């Protein structure tokens, strides 16, 4: 199909703070692994844990 747009998939990581349940979505970074501690929570200073890693497709 000449006019069909190319689809690209971008990987995202969802971090969740187990203390305040705050969620943050960011682009997947090398070394991200599910259920592991990731970064400091921006709202309560707790340690956020990687809750999900998934891909979303976009048309280019």
């Amino acid at each position, binding site marked *: 199909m000449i006019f069909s747009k190319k689809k690209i*998939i971008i*990987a*995202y990581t969802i971090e969740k703070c187990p203390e305040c349940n705050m969620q943050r979505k960011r682009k*997947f970074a*090398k070394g991200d*692994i*599910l*259920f*592991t501690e990731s970064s400091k929570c921006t709202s309560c200073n707790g340690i956020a844990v990687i809750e*999900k*890693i*998934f*891909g*979303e497709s976009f048309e280019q």
Partner: protein
Amino acid sequence: MSDDSNPLMMLVWILPIILFVFYGQRIQLYVTSGEIKKAIKKLDSFREESKTELIDYIKKNTSFEIDSIKKIDRFLDYFTIMPVDMDPNGIVDKVQHTVRAREDYTREHIKTLYPQLSDFELTKVQTLLELASSLQMIHKIVNHMFLTAKKQNNYPLILPLQMILPFVMEQAEAMKEAISAFKSGQPVGDGIGPMVVGKMMLNCEKQILAFQTTLAKTDFEGRQLLLLKAEGPGSTVGRPADALEKIVSENTINTIIMVDAALKMEGEESASVAQGFGAAIGGIGTERFQIEAIATSKNIPIFSIVVKQSVKEAITLMTKEIADKADDTRQQVYEMIKENTKEGQSIVVIGVGNTVGVPQ
């Protein structure tokens, strides 16, 4: 002279009829050949791309030598001869032996070639090798079928190829796209089972029960849960049947619950969750056979929860829809336990699938 009796007009009608009667099949062969040639060209590019990606990955993660790359090249051409099935008695054990021998041989050789690879990286290289090898085999088979039909100038011979080609291409495209997820150690759609059970295992003591297979014990509303999944975050499906055999030999099990990804039918919604009976586990069939045999001999009911997805979704980076269903599926596992078991009973929950990027 009217148009009806004009000999020239009659020729215009009759000539194509004669042409199609005698050369119809050949014309169809040419038209179909064009489409198949395009597909073969695409398959060839997939094959080449997967090989390049594998070699690049090895170069980046090891101190490679040219010689070792040549050996990897040889691995791509490895074939597996399935056991004779004229006498089906004992065929499952034979198939399992052949497949495991191939896996063990490949793993050991990669280990010898690149001793600096960690176990995690080793499983990834092994999966990338399998993908590249499968794409090479698909290309070879399709090319062979096409060239045979062409050589014999035999149109009916090309028909089965034309019919299966869209399915083959779907599978091949999925395999090609799977490479990036496995390289980055990201969870794939098939990993939903390990993802559900892996979260249930968090903060529990774990032990390796069978090759690349982890067990964790926990309690839930007066019941003992024995949680089983492949050892993550490496790219492996583990050996859940071997682990179940060990569990059953040491414990009295009342129920088995399996969580897996299942192929959706056309028209079915992706990431829909369904419950059912029987062992939900794919692959070549040997693991399912073993699990069914254990359950039958001990009279243990097997319940299943599956998350529906397409072939492509199953082996490529997990989609948002599937990832969002993890909590709901886990909730359904707990409900299933409450509805089908009593306090004091023991339940085995198996998270089936490739556990790449999913620890426990």
